């Protein structure tokens, strides 16, 4: 909301804040279903400690982030991914 209303204010009154719009990587590939045993696609969305990377950082859309979390949790359950990794 704030972002869209910000664009309507004339450019001269507002300082331009530069931010690049992150695109959801799953939307870009038109993936509807995230498969929990496809670790190659899950690995980049996990931190070094094994935490799930937030959508704020990764730029994923809400729908895919929801599906991603269930996929990662399933992968953890069956020991394809670690719950926590030593730093």
């Amino acid at each position, binding site marked *: 909301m704030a972002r869209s209303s910000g664009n309507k204010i004339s450019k001269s009154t507002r300082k331009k804040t530069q931010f690049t719009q992150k695109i959801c990587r799953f939307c870009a590939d038109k993936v509807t*279903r995230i*498969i929990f*045993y*496809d*670790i*190659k696609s899950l690995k980049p969305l996990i931190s070094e400690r094994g935490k799930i990377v937030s959508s704020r950082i990764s730029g994923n859309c809400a729908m895919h982030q929801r599906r991603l979390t269930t996929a990662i949790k*399933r*992968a*953890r*359950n*069956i*020991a*394809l*991914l*670690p*719950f926590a990794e030593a730093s």
Partner: protein
Amino acid sequence: MKSYQSVLILKADLDDAQVDQVIEKITEFLSKNNGSLLKVDKWGKKRLGYRIKKSRFGYYLNIYHTCESLKVSALEADYKLYDLILKFLVIKLSAKELEQEMKSDEIDNGVEEAKEKKPVTKSESDNGVEEVKEKN
């Protein structure tokens, strides 16, 4: 009849014969309960994300099957009792998901550990079987 996917982690040091035994046991259970086996993927030996029952490696089996929805808990209890299975995961699949799974080929994810398997010469295979039994 609903379709399910169950992923099993077996002990890492099993022969092919023992793996087939596990699959046979599951088919037996399913046929008793009006279910059927659709597809079996052997992912092979892999390094586990964390230790399960003190083992660092496991043999992965991916099975697609149908089962009566009331008998799934019984199936899970069966998995628990079978001592060759370290851990398991049973997931319900919708019709669409099942179609995709049956179409898709195996996804190769980090099967580098499988290369570590010790080469067993055929002449010593009889001895090899005995050794495995002792370990169990």
